[in-house]
């Protein structure tokens, strides 16, 4: 569990580091039980609102590119951006730096140790009903149900899928501060290879069987573009090919049907394949609960196997797909 101590230490550090003009990106309580929401802090008085705990599942890296892009002119940044991140989120930040989306010197990356986060959706599934309150105590989630009864859940029972093994938990190659000290829950098994070695559906099933799964999953898509907009690797913002309004015939019809939905997800994954750090945000935010992990796991392993590239783990090397030098060996 991310301890209160870390939360306090991070706050103290931010107090010291904060200068006028800086923006702090962190978490606060949203008011909905079990849901944390990101917070942008512009003034020193608001630093007290920061709350970091094991419900902080959002990947704050997604907000970084907006500071340096055209659409959101209202938040063009002069000072630094102080961002608090879990080690997995820090990989997205590093990847964005190496994609030249954000300048390195404008970021103060504060990483805190984490041993698994959870979402209110997972807790609801676990207790099989709605709840009205969550307290975090002694490595357990104390859930107050709607009938005022309470139930306690071990942290490791409700970890989100990316926390099943430690492949994203190692220290990023670039950071400014790193806080250690989780408490009272079993650590994530760093040696477990659940994520990297479980056979992919694409390999396990025959193509027609797999196609059926793809069809049933993507049929549900309502194209709200939550997956695209929450993705730190999808940094085209309003320039995205999918909603380019100036084209005479839009590249992707707005009509929602299976063929168009598949096309949308094909374009998205093809574009983010070399940048995806498997943060799992797209799957988490999908209101239709589409299992997008079957795709991003596939692409990540593919890029790793064929190009030897693990996004978010190398600071300087830009992806090979974007870069070619004469004489270099192909695929």
């Amino acid at each position, binding site marked *: 569990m991310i301890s209160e101590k870390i939360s306090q230490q991070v706050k103290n550090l931010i107090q010291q580091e904060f200068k006028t003009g800086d923006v702090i990106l962190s978490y606060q309580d949203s008011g909905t039980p079990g849901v944390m929401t990101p917070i942008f802090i512009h003034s020193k008085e608001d630093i007290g609102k920061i709350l970091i705990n094991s419900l902080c599942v959002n990947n704050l890296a997604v907000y970084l590119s907006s500071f340096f892009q055209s659409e959101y002119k209202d938040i063009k940044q002069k000072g630094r951006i102080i961002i608090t991140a879990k080690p997995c989120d820090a990989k997205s930040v590093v990847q964005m730096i190496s994609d030249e989306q954000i300048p390195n010197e404008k970021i103060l990356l504060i990483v805190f140790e984490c041993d698994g986060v959870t979402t209110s959706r997972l807790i609801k599934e676990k207790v099989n009903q709605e709840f009205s309150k969550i307290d975090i105590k002694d490595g357990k989630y104390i859930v107050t149900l709607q009938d005022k009864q309470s139930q306690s859940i071990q942290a490791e029972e409700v970890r989100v899928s990316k926390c099943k093994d430690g492949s994203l938990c190692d220290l990023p190659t670039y950071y400014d501060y790193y806080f250690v000290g989780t408490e009272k829950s079993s650590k994530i098994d760093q040696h477990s290879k659940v994520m990297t070695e479980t056979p992919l559906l694409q390999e396990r099933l025959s193509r027609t069987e797999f196609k059926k799964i793809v069809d049933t999953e993507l049929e549900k898509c309502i194209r709200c573009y939550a997956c695209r907009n929450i993705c730190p690797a999808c940094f085209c913002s309003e320039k995205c090919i999918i909603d380019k309004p100036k084209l005479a015939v839009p590249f992707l019809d707005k009509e929602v049907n299976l063929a168009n939905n598949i096309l949308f997800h094909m374009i998205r994954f*093809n574009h983010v394949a070399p940048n995806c750090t498997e943060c799992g945000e797209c799957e988490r935010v999908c209101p239709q609960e589409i299992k997008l992990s079957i795709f991003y796991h596939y692409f990540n392993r593919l890029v790793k196997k064929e190009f030897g590239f693990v996004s978010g783990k190398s600071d300087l090397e830009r992806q090979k797909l974007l870069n070619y030098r004469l004489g270099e060996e192909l695929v």
Partner: protein
Amino acid sequence: MAKQDLIYLFLCRADKRKKLLTEIEKKFPNIQTINIHCAGRFNPILAFKLLQQKAAGVILLGCDTGDCHYREGNLFSERRIFLARETLHGFGMDRNRLQALWYNPKQIAPVLESLETFTKYISNLASKGDSI
């Protein structure tokens, strides 16, 4: 033309390859040719869109490695095509529906031969009931 056997051919500098074009038109009525300036300008999402909506197969025909008019255009494309083909596979489609051929512009026979194999392969898929 029905979707199951329509094939789109992206041809690098087609306007300069009249002889090849007439041969293709004569031999393969189901192939639609699209002129592009360099194989390096080929965007895989065009292939996705065609496969999803209109066509059963897409081929990119570019110059041999090292022959590129723009020096390295086709090398970029080769990597992109690789990823695009794997994308098709990742979404449960046959990756061979998208092909890239690299050929010497002076030799027409081997091109026609590979187009022949490709059309056969696509119509074979259709007869097996493998729809996109």
